[in-house]
């Protein structure tokens, strides 16, 4: 497993919050935390770095999270990438769209840092 976690969000504070939250995984489990500031950059990074886990914001400039998600799922060598969508849209409809686009999980902003870390641990099988 490629020990890389990618954070894609156009908000620098959110990126910073997630990075700080995941610092534990970096320190304790040797994961590398990567980040991208928009959808295109995020997709390019996924292709180049092939991270095990991606925290993907939905509402972003250039390419939104759903589109990135679909692109990733279309490419066979990226299909194993686990994507957790992060969004302010908390409706069931949005959740559906995300799942259909190929997202593994769906987190609603504002999320709890502990929850996010727990989710990441769970997905990565670190419990």
């Amino acid at each position, binding site marked *: 497993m490629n020990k890389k976690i990618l954070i894609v969000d156009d908000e620098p504070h959110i990126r910073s919050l997630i990075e700080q939250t995941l610092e534990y995984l970096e320190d304790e489990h040797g994961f590398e935390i990567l980040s991208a500031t928009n959808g295109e950059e995020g997709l390019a990074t996924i292709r180049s770095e092939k991270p095990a886990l991606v925290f993907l914001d939905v509402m972003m400039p250039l390419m939104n999270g759903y589109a990135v998600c679909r692109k990733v799922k279309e490419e066979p060598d990226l299909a194993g990438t686990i994507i957790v969508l992060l969004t302010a849209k908390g409706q069931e409809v949005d959740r559906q769209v995300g799942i259909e686009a190929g997202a593994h999980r769906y987190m609603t902003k504002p999320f709890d*840092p502990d929850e996010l870390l727990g989710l990441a641990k769970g997905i990565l099988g670190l419990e």
Partner: protein
Amino acid sequence: MTGNPPTMLRSKLFLRLFALQVVIVAIFGAAIYFLSVPLIKKTIYDQEQTAGRTILDNVYELANRIHADLEDYRKGAIDARKRELKNVVSIAASYIRSVFAEVDKGALTRDQATARVAERLRSLRFGKDDYIWVVDYDSFSIAHPDPKVNGTDNSQLRDGRGELLIPPMVEIARRSGEGYRTYWWSRLGASDPSEKLAYFMDFPQLGWVIGTGVYMDDIDAEVVEKKMEAIERLRTSLREIRISKTGYVYIFDSGMNMFIHPNPNIEGKNVAGLENPTTGHPLVRDLVAVADTGDGLVYKWDKPSDPGNYSYDKISWVRHFKGFGWYLASSVYTEELQRGADVLGNRILAITAVVLVLATLLGYVFVGKLTAPIRRLSDTARRVRNGDLSAVSGIQRDDEIGVLSAAFDSMVEQLRENIDVLDIKVKERTHDLEKANEELKELDRMKSGFLSSVSHELRTPLTSVRGFAKLIAKDFEKVFAPRAQGDAKAEKTASRVQENLGIILAESDRLTRLIDDVLDIAKIESGRVAWNEETFRFGDLVQKAARAVEAVFSASPRVSFTVAIEEGLPETAADPDRLTQVIANLLSNAAKFTEEGEVELRAWRQADGLLRVDVRDSGPGIPAMEQERIFDKFHQVVRDDTLVDKPKGTGLGLAICKEIVEHYGGRIWVESEVGKGSTFSFVIPAKTKGTG
């Protein structure tokens, strides 16, 4: 102006007036007919009867005149005979004187003269074998053509009736000089005596009485001849007499011989045996009985056209003419007397009918003309009522109807103009409203979009605030707090930092809920919610909602939480998350406001089939004024003694609950008393399908 009849006949006004008119005309017609016809009929019948009687009276007068004429004739004839007799006797006397003048001259002796006179007179004849006789004062016959009488003593001679014949005449002659006498004497050469009228004259020079006579039969024969002629004339006249149509006059004598009758079968016959079929008596006897009473005899008789059928009423008036011993009778069928009356009655009926029809027709036209404008006005009014404001009566008259019509037309015109103006205004307003509505919709879309993006924009910084606060709290607890131990001031500061971080976290939680609720209600109100409907057992859902909030109650040991769900609650179709949201909201409110006491959740099915959920708490209760507004947006119960140390609500929870319950055709309400607690209840239909 009269319009077409079907229209006219549909007009109630016309029908009423026309019917009234017809009734009045009919009453008048009937009155005229029934008042006049019986009277006229009776009068005419009486007149016909009078006419019948008058004809009979005239015939009676005719008979009377005939009788008088005959009597006159007889009298005249007797007088003429008397004169003749007197002349003959005078001539005889002159002859006697001339013969006896010879005696005076001495040429003849008295006996010779007497013989000559006797011989001469005996041979003298006049008239119808009439003769002269001479007797002396002793009734001794000096000259008589009958040799049995001549030269005999006639003093004891009696006539055919046994009366002394000659001496009374001698006595009259000697007393009065002359005289007349009737007696019964046989004709010369005949044996039966006949009535004879005699004239006799005194001849005193010789002491003789000279006489002559004539048989009355001879006079009567002339009278009878005259009478027969008169009767024949009478018969001829009577045949021409007609009473009514076939009525006639007939005459029978006291011997019941019908000697004048228009029917030749009866005329000349004896009718004594003819029976009156009505009484059974001889008809003639009944007729005689009513003679000269003025009343008619009514009896049944047959008709020439229907012989032998004695069923027709006939009336006869009878008069007895004593002069001839006649019974004059007139006879007529009563129906003929009534025929005139019937004809007149029928004519009056016909005239009445014609007048009735004419009056009805005139009334039809007249009432039609009278009601036409009213009808037209009412038609116009009906059209106007049905919405045709272009209807105009157009009636121009100088009477009240004209004024009414003109006023009506102008009112309708005014109305039409007003409505036109109103229409234009309504169109303008509608246009404005549509525009405003479009703008509102646009605004609504903008609002929704705005709310959506605002909530997104809010969530992102909130995520940072909350997240970093948490990280700080974690770092602080892990790294800084242990280091502050032992330093009183640092410990105090550390404690305050941790407290403040807690406030930041609590407030950011509240802000998160607020954003969620605002977004929720905005979506519900704009109809953009996707209602994910499922069919589920209502009891299970309530149970699940109760479990979701159980944790809240277990954190408050002074509050007992009981759940009572009726067994076997039916299925219902709704968005389970939304219904759970409602129940959880009510329960968390109850928990929030109840510091000590109990909260009870009950669910059951009402008698009317609705599913009912009650959340009862023993909290502070809600004032009546507040109860009305508690389901309004952003409304919160304001009380000094509540919400201390409790997370504040957003003021949207109950509004959202209300929207959800009402979406499923249900109802939500609260019953509360300050100091005793509140019960929030809602009902929804079982097995319902929302419209989403």
